[in-house]
């Protein structure tokens, strides 16, 4: 061993100090060259087994591949995970980075091609979770074989998962593509930044989304269409944060750029709609009206029924803000017509809700109730619990005005129950406070106090200290108003009078 130790010392001295992968390079140098080469190949996929090893090194027979896997499983850098072997992260990262170097490009490409074919065969015979995992792995190797095709597959999978709001799955896909960061061509890099920006926005990570979208818009080498979309997204994220000025600026930049290109998939009417909503929410209602109407006009030119429906709905909300409830109703009804054409019943539920609110503005309570109920029915069918809770909350006010007190309380309690089920604590607090006010109007002081106290607790739980304080004040005002009922006062006065008269009577005697 002493000679061996000396040899080992010598080998260690030869390695560059602090170099990454030094230990793995030493190991590979001592291994049988064929085995070492095969181990390097095993760093291309994230997991491997005998069939994958044969796809990596087609010259191997099944028996040889089996034997090699057993040998590799004894190495410290390899561990077993559910019938597959996995290389330790650190070693895998180092060896994979070598594969991305230009001198290995051709071999890397052909190996990935074989892996794509391998996974395609497995996908054909899989189902459920396993299919998803295999699709991810196929996408990863498709990127290695053909960047454009691989990236298109990434976009397809990402779009599919975003539509189902499976953001975790989107994040996983992003992480896989990131392994190719150092070799992605600029256009793909730009598209990648755009997708990551969308994901960050979905996760409400505003600074991150801002940074990524700005990376896209600042890069003049990228296609104009992508920059239009990025500008528009910047407008949306600033609007979410109620930074109206910046939101307007970015939407306008999107519009200006959109005018310079033909065949942009993001049409002007979409951008105009977003801009119109920003003006509406920031208070410039007349400007908003012009933009939303323009959006309807352009959406009609493109036969975009969904776009027309959405714009009419937004116009409806605008008219409500302007206090023009009749016009709002017309706009909502037009929106419904188009939604029925495209059979979008879920959005119809929202528009029914808005119609209910518009009729409530006009104090036409029966009609208001009718539309809230229609909204409720669709939401019940769709098992949209939060949606139902909001509509029940709206119905409370309607029933109160129809003097249907029991129904009002029931609706309020339903809203509270559903908000609680969904752990939407702020909404629960608001609904509980509404119930407290309802009880107060009914002169049911005890129940009102209980509900106010609960509402205060809930607002505090959500860190809404201002709202908690306001609610506390309402509770205290209620307590101050509480005194003895009038008949008790009358009884006391009569009693005192009786005592006085008795005393006078006795004295006169």
């Amino acid at each position: 061993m002493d000679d061996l130790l000396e040899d080992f010392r010598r080998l260690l001295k030869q390695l560059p100090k602090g170099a990454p992968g030094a230990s793995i390079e030493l190991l590979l140098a001592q291994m049988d060259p064929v085995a070492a080469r095969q181990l390097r190949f095993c760093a291309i996929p994230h997991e491997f087994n005998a069939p994958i090893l044969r796809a990596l090194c087609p010259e191997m027979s099944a028996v040889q591949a089996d034997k090699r896997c057993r040998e590799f499983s004894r190495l410290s850098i390899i561990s077993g995970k559910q019938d597959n072997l996995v290389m330790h992260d650190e070693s895998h990262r180092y060896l994979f980075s070598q594969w991305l170097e230009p001198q290995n490009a051709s071999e890397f490409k052909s190996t990935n091609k074989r892996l794509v074919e391998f996974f395609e065969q497995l996908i054909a015979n899989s189902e459920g979770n396993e299919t998803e995992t295999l699709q991810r792995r196929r996408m990863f190797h498709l990127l290695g074989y053909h960047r454009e095709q691989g990236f298109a597959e990434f976009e397809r999978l990402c779009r599919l998962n975003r539509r189902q709001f499976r953001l975790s799955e989107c994040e996983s896909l992003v992480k896989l593509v990131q392994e190719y960061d150092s070799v992605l061509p600029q256009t793909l890099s730009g598209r990648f930044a755009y997708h990551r920006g969308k994901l960050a926005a979905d996760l409400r990570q505003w600074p991150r989304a801002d940074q990524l979208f700005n990376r896209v818009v600042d890069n003049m080498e990228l296609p104009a269409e992508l920059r239009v979309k990025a500008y528009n997204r910047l407008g949306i994220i600033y609007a979410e944060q109620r930074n109206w000025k910046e939101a307007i600026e970015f939407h306008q930049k999107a519009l200006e750029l959109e005018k310079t290109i033909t065949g942009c998939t993001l049409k002007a009417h979409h951008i105009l709609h977003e801009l119109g909503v920003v003006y509406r929410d920031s208070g410039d209602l007349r400007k908003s009206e012009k933009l939303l109407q323009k959006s309807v006009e352009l959406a009609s030119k493109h036969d975009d029924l969904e776009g027309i429906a959405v714009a009419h709905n937004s116009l409806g909300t605008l008219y409500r803000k302007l206090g023009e409830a009749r016009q709002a109703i017309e706009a909502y009804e037009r929106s419904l017509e188009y939604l029925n054409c495209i059979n979008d019943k879920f959005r119809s539920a929202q528009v029914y809700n808005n119609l209910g609110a518009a009729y409530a503005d006009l104090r036409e309570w029966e009609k208001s109730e009718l539309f809230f109920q229609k909204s409720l029915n669709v939401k019940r069918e769709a098992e949209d619990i939060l949606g139902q809770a909001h509509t029940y909350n709206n119905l409370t006010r309607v029933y109160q005005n129809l003097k249907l007190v029991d129904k009002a309380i029931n609706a309020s309690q339903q809203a509270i129950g559903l908000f609680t089920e969904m752990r939407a604590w702020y909404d629960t607090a608001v609904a509980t406070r509404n119930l407290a006010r309802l009880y107060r109007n009914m002169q049911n002081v005890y129940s009102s106090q209980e509900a106010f106290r609960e509402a205060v607790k809930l607002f505090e739980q959500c860190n809404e200290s201002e709202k908690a304080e306001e609610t506390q004040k309402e509770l205290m005002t209620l307590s101050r108003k509480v005194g003895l009922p009038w008949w008790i006062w009358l009884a006391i006065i009569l009693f005192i009078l009786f005592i006085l008269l008795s005393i006078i009577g006795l004295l006169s005697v």
Partner: protein
Amino acid sequence: MITEIERRLAEFVDRESEICLFCDLLRGGEKRILMIWGGGGVGKSSLLARMIHECAKRKITKAEVVWSSTRNPDYLAIMGKIRDDAGAEKFKAFADLENSLSGSGYELKMKVESPSSIQVGQGVRMKDSQGKIVGIEINEPTFVLPRSDQAIMESERMSRLTDRFIKDLAEATKSVLLVIFFDAIERMTEETKNWVCNELLGTERENRLPNVRFVLCGRKRLCLDRDTQILAEEAELHPLELEDIVHYLEKRGVEKNNREALAELLLVSTHGNPLNIAIYVDGLFELRRKKIHNSG
């Protein structure tokens, strides 16, 4: 033939204080969560394997969720894995809710194939009625796609499923201890991390799962809220020291007279990183094999 787990356990050195913390966790007490973190190759997964072995020795039920580059369990997959490891039959209500939120007109259809005829209970003599004999065990597949005829928001689906799952888990662990291991948590997506911290670990705060313990391993320390932090024990894994490396070399079969010198060499080259130490020792043994082969 020795398995990988057996090999890892046989070569395991140091980390006594972490094992003590784990045993305290099992004993019951204030701490319900154990967090282990450290850089790449410092031995987190090996320590986890040692803890899992401890559970097996004490016949404690365990569930294991591991993240990797291609396997990225989200909240649904985490619940599914815990369910499967703890005994899927105890989570019927959760499974029903999961399927109702996933498959429109859900109807379980299974094609059962067998190379020969399937005979159940052949030759069995039964005195009284024993009820039905289940000849084929059907494991419930997990449907992950949301229903297209419903407008349920993902957050709503998450809340409802989590609630149901926690209830079933509480019932399933009423009289048994369950330890849930999470490995490579740095790979969790943001959404999954929020769910784990707020929904799953949050149950410890509310004492909804008194017989469940969590062990989390990752490269970075997970930030928990103040109330949950009180219930957590933390340990950062450090590189090995000289005597640990000597101990490791002994377990790897290095001759006694060379251990100290080799350990010093390895300490300088690796700064005590267990993975690099192990790789270098593998390299040393390959070198020895090569020498023997060449001289033979």
